[in-house]
Every structure is written in C-alpha cells, then in structure tokens.
C-alpha cells in the first residue's frame, strides 16, 4: 500500500475533520485538546500506508487513530494523577473537564471511555467490531461495556429528570 495523495487527503480532511473534532471534544471536554489531537490524528494518517483505502475505511482509520491518542492521554493522565496522589497523600484523582454547556453536563459525569463508547455507538453509528478496534478492546467486551455506559448515562438523566420528550 502507498501513502495518501494530497487530493484524497484534502477530501478526507474536509469530510471528517469536524466529526473527529466533535468526538474528541466531547470525550476530552477541552477544545484545545481536541484541536491538538485532531491535528495529530490527521498527521499520523498522512504517515500511514493507507493509500488504497476508500472514504469509509479512511474515516474509520482516522477515528481509530484519534481513539488511540485519547487512550494514550488517559494512560498518561492516570499515571501522573497517581504520582501526584502519592506525593500529596490523597486519593482524589477525579478531574472535571471544562464542559461549557448544559446539554453535556450529564455526559461529562461519565468516565472518558464510557463517553467514547457512547459517542462512537450513537453518533458515529459504529458497529461493536469497529468500536472495539478503535478503542483497543476485545469485541466481546463491547456489548457489556456499552450496556454499563448506557446504564450510567441513564442514571445521570434520571437524576436530572431529563426525558426523551424534554
């Protein structure tokens, strides 16, 4: 396989950059992080041998790169938080993302991986297989993890009295 040519990349970027940014923004909760990660994901796409892939495969591929970058960031953040906790002698590792609108407050209360799972399933309409590949999880675990994430979101929505007709 070969690298993407400039015209195909421009078209892929045009089609997917906003969707990828929205995904990264809703999962990280920070616009500046979403900017950085989206740029990084497209740069990595350009360095990968994906020349023969179609539009849909490229979209999945760039979302997979974005999800890998998110996972790296969580791992680093968890490690840093655990070291800070050891230094401080506390166990409070929860950091609230800077969500800016009321619609996303319930979403922000979920764990990052749950946010990623729900976004990929409901907004991007990915299959369990594709979600597993994007998040580096086993396909068999997606149904359970997604069900758990839905349960947590439902609890948040019930607590805030939000219904489908609201």
């Amino acid at each position, binding site marked *: 396989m070969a690298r993407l040519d*400039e015209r195909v*990349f*421009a078209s892929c*970027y*045009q089609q997917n*950059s*906003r969707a990828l*940014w*929205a995904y990264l*923004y*809703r999962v990280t909760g920070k*616009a500046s992080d*979403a*900017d950085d990660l*989206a*740029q990084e994901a*497209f*740069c990595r796409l*350009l*360095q990968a041998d994906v020349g023969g892939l179609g539009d849909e495969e490229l979209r999945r591929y760039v979302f997979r790169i974005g999800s890998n970058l998110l996972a790296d960031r969580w791992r680093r953040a968890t490690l840093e938080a655990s070291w800070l906790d050891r230094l401080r002698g506390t166990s409070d590792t929860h950091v609230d993302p800077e969500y*800016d*609108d009321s*619609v*996303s407050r*319930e*979403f922000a209360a979920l764990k990052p991986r749950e946010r990623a799972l*729900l*976004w990929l399933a*409901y*907004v991007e309409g990915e299959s369990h297989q594709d979600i597993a590949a994007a998040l580096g999880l086993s396909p068999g675990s997606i149904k359970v993890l997604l*069900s*758990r994430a*839905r*349960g*947590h*979101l*439902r609890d948040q*929505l019930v607590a805030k009295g*939000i*219904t*489908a007709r609201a």
Partner: protein
Amino acid sequence: MVEWLWRAMSADEEQNIAAYMSRLATAGSRHTPRLPTAEVLWVKAQMLERWEAERRVQAPLDVMEPFQIGAGLIAAGILLFWSLPALLRVLS
C-alpha cells in the same frame, strides 16, 4: 456491583438515551474547532516525516558521541603519561 445486569433498560429509557445523544451531537458549543487547512497539515506532516528521517540517521551518531569523547580523553591521558618523563626532562 452488577446492578446494570439485572436492571434491564426499558424501551423508553433506550429512546431517552438515543434522543439525548442525538441532542448532544447537534448541540452547539461556544468553542469552534481551530484546525489548520488540509494544505497546512500536509506540509506539517511532510516536515515531521523529514525530521523523523533525519533523527533516524542522526541517532547512531548521537549514541556514539559519548564513546567518542571518552576514547579521546583516554588517548590524551595515555599520550600524556607516555610523554611525561620527556616533558619533565625538558622542563628541568
């Protein structure tokens, strides 16, 4: 711990979540993406690739540099030790 397993989700709740996610996907935000154009990213990726290639070529030289300095210092020490009697003779 496994409450989510036995507390099955009703169709209403499922619909509620789907509606919420759909609202979330279309909800505006005071932030807008600050992304470069495709052309800028293309150039950036090319530069990153070139730097990475240079780094790969440079890496063995960087690794060997301390050994090179160490070998030079040892050689200078041996030379000094070897020429010390003659040097002392000249000075005296």
